[in-house]
């Protein structure tokens, strides 16, 4: 029963939603719409599950007086404070202040750090040790050069070259990758619907 019920739920829900893609019937559409909206509700609960897990991991660390418990306190306090403000005062100036002056700068600067590390990664990646490395070096430099915002002022052929590189060889390669990815995704989804893979059990 422990396994059969979730499997049956997965198969039934999957069948209704998949059928709705190909069979425009009002009844099937109505059931599929309910299931899809229900999935968004479950996704919200899954987010809460993640928050609960985060609190329990760091809470245990704080309770155990392990190394780094001070940072755990900071994490828990900031989580609970933001949650409290967000629930009690949604869309308020307080929540906007936390977002604009704490959340935004922190996350933006974390991404900005990558600018430094991508250049040091380039030092390793641009070594012409094999033919593939040479291809990658040439294509990277070409794309950067042609992406210059004032490229047209340097040469009218730079934007043309950029367009050609992106619309012909890069599109061809990316289409192969996109098709391969789509095939993999569909195969995985089919395995779940046919209960060959049962990640929920």
């Amino acid at each position, binding site marked *: 029963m422990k396994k059969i019920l979730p499997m049956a739920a997965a198969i039934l829900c999957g069948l209704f939603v998949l059928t709705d893609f190909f069979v425009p019937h009002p009844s099937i559409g109505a059931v599929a*719409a309910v299931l899809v909206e229900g999935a*968004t509700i479950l*996704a919200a609960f899954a987010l809460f599950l993640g928050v609960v897990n985060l609190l329990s991991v760091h809470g245990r660390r704080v309770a155990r007086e392990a190394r780094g418990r001070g940072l755990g306190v900071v994490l828990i306090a900031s989580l609970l404070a933001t949650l409290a403000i967000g629930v009690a005062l949604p869309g308020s100036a307080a929540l906007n202040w936390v977002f604009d002056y704490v959340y*935004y700068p*922190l996350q933006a600067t974390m991404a*900005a750090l990558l600018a430094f590390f991508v*250049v040091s990664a380039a030092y390793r990646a641009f070594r*012409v040790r094999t033919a593939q490395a040479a291809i990658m070096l040439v294509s990277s430099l070409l794309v950067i050069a042609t992406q210059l*915002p004032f490229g047209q002022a340097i040469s009218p052929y730079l934007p043309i070259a950029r367009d050609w590189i992106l619309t012909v060889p890069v*599109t061809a390669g990316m289409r192969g990758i996109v098709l391969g990815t789509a095939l993999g995704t569909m195969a995985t989804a089919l395995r779940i619907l046919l209960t060959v893979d049962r990640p929920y059990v």
Partner: protein
Amino acid sequence: MIVCAACNHRNPSDALVCEACGGSLEHFVYRACPSCGALNPAENVFCHRCFDDLVPGSAETIVEASDIPVESFVPSEPSVTDREEAVREAAAPPVGERPTSDLILEADAEVATTAEVVSEETEPGPLAEPQQLVGEPIERLEAAPSEPEAPMQPSELIPEAEEDVLEGLEGLVPIAAAATQAHAFALPVPPSVSETEQHDAELFHSIASERGPLRDAARVVIPRRARLLSRRGRALLYLLVLLAALTPVFTGDRTSLLLRPRDSVTSLARDIQSLPTGSAVLISFDYGPAYAGEVDPLALAVGRHLAASQVRVVAMSTDPGGVGLAEHLYRTIAGEMPDYRYGESYAILGYLPGPEAGLRTLCTSLGKAFKVDYVQRRTLSELPVMKDLTSVQDFDQVIVFADDSRSVRSWIEQVQSQCNFSLHALVTAAIEPMLLPYQQSGQLSTLIAAAHSAGEYEKASGMEEPSLHWTDAYGAFCLVLLVTAIATNVAYLRTRARQRSHGQ
């Protein structure tokens, strides 16, 4: 039971390979007591905690009494075995009814019997010789017969008590303990041990009862990969990147004057310009604060253009951070244009979780996806800007700002393929190549990389005072990457030449 050194699995005493991991048990380090589970060194033949046999059927081996290890032992609950039950059955009536000497002799007999039943291991380990066992003999064991041939029955040991057999043996035999203990089988309490013995015993106990992984001792040190770039080299690179980013401070960002809008940017500006007054555009802010630095300028330029064109704008997001970014952006635009009011000119519907499922609900009805708006928490029908807008097909254009190709793909697969409408994707430069196939197939009407497109859009839309966009910095960054490529290959060639000359 033999404890596998690799995976801590407890295997039968006669096992040659581990049942769990298949590893060899030839050089095992610990045995687990089958009765109480305590860990004992491999050379032990009986458990240090409960004195039960570690190897079943090991009664045949004759072991020197002096080789039996000593352990600080506090008898708790005696582990009952068949042998103990037999001894108990043979035991006389309770204390007080039989002479003490008989009890002492019985105790000696038990010790002798115990010495007999301790046997050799059926599979000798590295320290299998009983003579190598740890500990010093207890004095009382010296009184036991050295090599008993057969177990002596207690009845054989009970002589006629004519004289005090304990004469001269005071202090050697723990009489008080043996005499006063309850008749349930319990080993006599050994005499007090010295400090050294106590320390050794405690150390042994802490090691033997340690339940940590045994693999820790077998840690293999993997040689660290040599760094291509030294610390100074890295610092220099980082400094170059920083200087590249600060270039416009010194150059005054002159190259922004040279910006020419690309065709895709011009086409989008034209599409928006051609929208009649009162049309509706759905904007999805599917990016977080991480990429806001790149996308926000373009989003602000497009937002201002839409506001100036008096087009109704409905904003939403499938990224939690996108809602705050939308709110910040429209607060800025509303601050610049007093007539641009929330609820009448624009609205922010909020966050839609579960990207594929959430976007699929947009196909059926907006009301199924969003019950209330984000700012004023009113139902959608109460907002004037939402008039006649019930599903995504009612919008004239749909613009998606995204930092993740999966988000745009979800829009195409779940919404655009089901409800036909014009989808414009304004994305980060990092994901633009991944979406090129969708633009080429016509599923995306527009695909623009945001990096420096804000300036191009402002020119294309005819804004009078374009903002500063630091385009000089991009040129400097290109130079830094070029210098990096040259430097790494020069260094590589020099290293190869040096290696060749050393090889010769």
